């Protein structure tokens, strides 16, 4: 009888717990939306004297290198590939959510006069 009660109590707790999971997930926000500019490159390209890589062939993280030489890692889940093709190695403006040194990119636009930057410019 005691064992049965325990099992039923456990079953009840699991079900009740499931009920509240989505509320907690939705509540986990409070991130800050930002607009930033800098050079769109990859972590590896930042370290190389000359970088011939295209961004999608580079296994290292995409980064934004700001005029004040800060590096932000970019998460780019829902952005179409062409937006990065047109911006890679150039000055870009990025809208996204800042989380520590990471930006979850919402949109990205190459800035005017933004030919590909050489390593010297970085």
């Amino acid at each position, binding site marked *: 009888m005691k064992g049965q009660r325990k099992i039923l109590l456990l*079953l*009840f707790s699991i079900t009740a717990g499931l009920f509240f999971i989505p509320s907690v997930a939705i509540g986990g926000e409070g991130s800050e*939306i930002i*607009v930033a500019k800098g050079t769109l490159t990859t972590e590896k390209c930042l370290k190389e004297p000359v970088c011939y890589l295209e961004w999608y062939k580079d296994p290292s993280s995409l980064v934004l290198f700001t005029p004040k030489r*800060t590096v932000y890692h970019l998460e780019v889940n829902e952005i179409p590939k062409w937006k990065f093709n047109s911006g890679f190695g150039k000055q870009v*403006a990025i*809208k996204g959510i800042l989380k520590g040194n990471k930006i979850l990119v919402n*949109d*990205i*636009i190459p800035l005017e006069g933004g030919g590909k930057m050489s390593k010297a410019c970085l």
Partner: protein
Amino acid sequence: MKVTSYKLQVTSAIAFVILTFLIGCKKSGEVEEKTTGVKILPGYLVETEELALLLDKPEVVIVDARAEDKYKKFHIPTAVNIPKTLFRTSEDIEYKKTNGFAISPEKTERLFGEAGISAESRVIIYDSVTFPDASIIWTFLKYYGHDNVQILKSGYEKWVSEGRHVTNEVKSVVKSEFKVKPRPEMVATLDWIRHKKDGITILDMRSFAEYIGTNSAGNKRGGSIPSAVNIEWNELAGDTTIKSLEEIHNVLSKYGVTKDKEIVTYCNWGIGRSTYGFMLLKMLGFEKVRVYGGSMEEWSARADLPIGDAKNIPADL
């Protein structure tokens, strides 16, 4: 002993079923509202099933907000066509230069009267997919004092996908008398925005490229109103309808848009993307929201006003 055990099992099974049912309900708007605090107020949207029962009601005026060529091809039976081009004539552009809002009271009375809309009408507007064009008519009706106006949820495409009847027959409209009762508190003018300055949340509903000025979109200067926040209108609109309440909640939270603030929406011409943002916030119960009729067309033409663009983006965060 056996009976007690049986009772316990039955009680627990019932509790299990109830809780499981509640979990299933999480997908419905009602429960979603409890977790997000966001809901569409009743009376703003109409389902296709309901509209199908209203087609022959004399007090119902169905408005097709799509382009004229699409309307002529096929439309929902008895619908009249008010495409957005009717709000962007040379007469409207001239009127807006001095009044800051897109159409005059005289034109409104003429246009809506010719569509058969009177004070007694229940107006139901539909658009192609999402509602930027429908929102223009919705906003003008509300601004000029007509409250009995709704939007067809999921628009024309859903109506068609459900196999409901469409026609190319144009209904002969009996003209009505439409009398305007303007509500200036729904509109922001340039002077109002300048006077309010930091006390308001300004939402730029255009694309990020227009916001930072790399795409000037035909305006005198590219860029945005300084201090404006860029929420591209389609962040709040799905492919066929408005986004889910959960997604809307997340977007509004991300940008710090809350009901306690005074909010202004704008785009380039003050109709379309700005009215969509305005309409959606109103549907969500935001009371202190205005649409800036002059929008970037007016702001950018004033060389004495500051503008935000890519040059103003700080060198670091």
